[in-house]
């Protein structure tokens, strides 16, 4: 989770990612960020986020993102 928060913080230093739960809905994360996030998460966690996981629900909070990473790391 810490690594993930660092990646997010690097994108927007001014957002409290631990509590924010509407990152996509409130347009905190835009397409620039989603692309960067997917690339960096893939690298850092050695996973490959498949296209069908790149949906708003998975990107609305750090928690949701982390749950997705854990799910994908299980394989």
């Amino acid at each position, binding site marked *: 989770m810490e690594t993930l928060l660092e990646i997010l913080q690097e994108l927007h*230093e001014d957002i409290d990612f631990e509590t924010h739960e509407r990152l996509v809905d409130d347009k905190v994360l835009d397409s*620039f960020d989603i*692309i960067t996030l997917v690339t960096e998460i893939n690298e850092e966690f050695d996973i490959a986020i498949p*296209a069908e996981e790149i*949906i*708003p629900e998975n990107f609305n909070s750090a928690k949701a993102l982390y749950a997705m990473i854990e799910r994908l790391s299980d394989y």
Partner: protein
Amino acid sequence: MQINILEYLENIVELFPNKIAFGDGDHTITFKEVYDQGRAIGTFLHNKGFYKEPIIIFMKKSPETIVAFQGTVYGGNYYVPIDEEMPEYRIKLILEKLNPKLIICDNTTEEIAQTFDFQGEIFLFEKIVKTQINEKALEKIRSQSIDTDPIYIVFTSGSTGIPKGVIANHRSVIDYIDNLTEILEVDQDTIFGNQTPLYLDASLKEIYSTLKLGATTYIIPKSLFSFPIKLVDFLNKYKINTICWVVTALTMISAFKVLDKSIPEYLHTIAFGSEVFPIKQFNLWRKALPNAKFINLYGPTETTGMCCFYRVNRDFQEEDVLPIGQPFKNTEILLLNDENKLCKKGEQGEICIRGTSLTLGYYKDFEKTREVFVQNPLNNAYPELIYRTGDIGKYNEWGELVFVSRKDHQVKHMGHRIELGEIDSHVNMLKGVNGAATLYNHEKGQIILFYAGDISKREVLEGLKKSLPRHMVPNKIKKLESIPLTSNGKIDRVYLKNII
């Protein structure tokens, strides 16, 4: 001879009055509606006495924005689109430059418009579109219009920190659209999926090709460009067959391997512009859509949209570069070397453009205009302007033009043209900053800011978000003790490049 862009709309409304012209996934409007609403707005502007004025269009990206553009021209004025995504400070700079008498907004932007530091009047699209059309007045305006009158101003990045307003006329747009529609083979069956913002000249492609040939354009909601599967679903739902997108929008789909699962099945024409298309990603697209036409477009805003094209006709390996090909009809490219002579075979030179496609220059900036819209150095007999792009190019073994690099610190990032110096000057304006240098990491496609001073990275970022458009905010910020200088006192970019 066509002299006014409105003739596109007037011809097509005779043929396809009830066909859908523009839609956005929420609602649609027909050519007849564009025609009637456009004339209503033109009449409104006339009634108010606005003529030959820059008119700010500050509306949500929607079919109505395009109606407002047409209405502005019906009234004999020229439109200046701004957008709610633009930061307050940039809008302030644009308003200062133009000193406009009015803003047209809609229900969604009215509140923000009220907060602008602005002396003129604000009108609501939803209200003025109900104006009773005055045919006689519109005819009179038209009879006084000539084809070198301006249509729009779009703002592009300026290295001094102040955006430059490029002002284009009927003639340059007609020349562009006539040639572009031939290259893209647009007809009444074309269905465009628009990606580019309406405040850039990039959107001329869809708007005026649709009006010229009776095609249809769907504006794709911006949020879909974050979520590739939904994006492809949208393309299929509206049977979109032609797209002119920035490369990053295309690579987002291919890099996330969406094409393995879901194909935009109606797509047959894919144009992309003025950014390097990584061949690995490009080949994924070609493999997924082997029968589609792929067209690389190139051109600066200063010469109206695009001016060169390359229709992909051979295979490309990962180390290859897609050429920008050949000029549009009625445009000539002069590749000039340091001595202002034509380059010899294989020699690199500055890409200079000659043709009707030249815009009128930069609004209220004669000095900057004269720096780049210059007398053709190959012609010492009569006045003839060319535009110096600052792009370095060369011809490859097939005789196709290839983009090599920039003469200055301008970069292309996510489809936007950015002067890195503009970012520097905004950082330097922040209190507590002692020095700044912005670099671009071409491999990762990231803007990297180095700064020195007493404020935190977070404060720098917060400050920049208020003054710069989203696409110009640095992706990475690094704080240094001081900005390294070379022995002759310039910023040591080579050193900085090595510590990226």
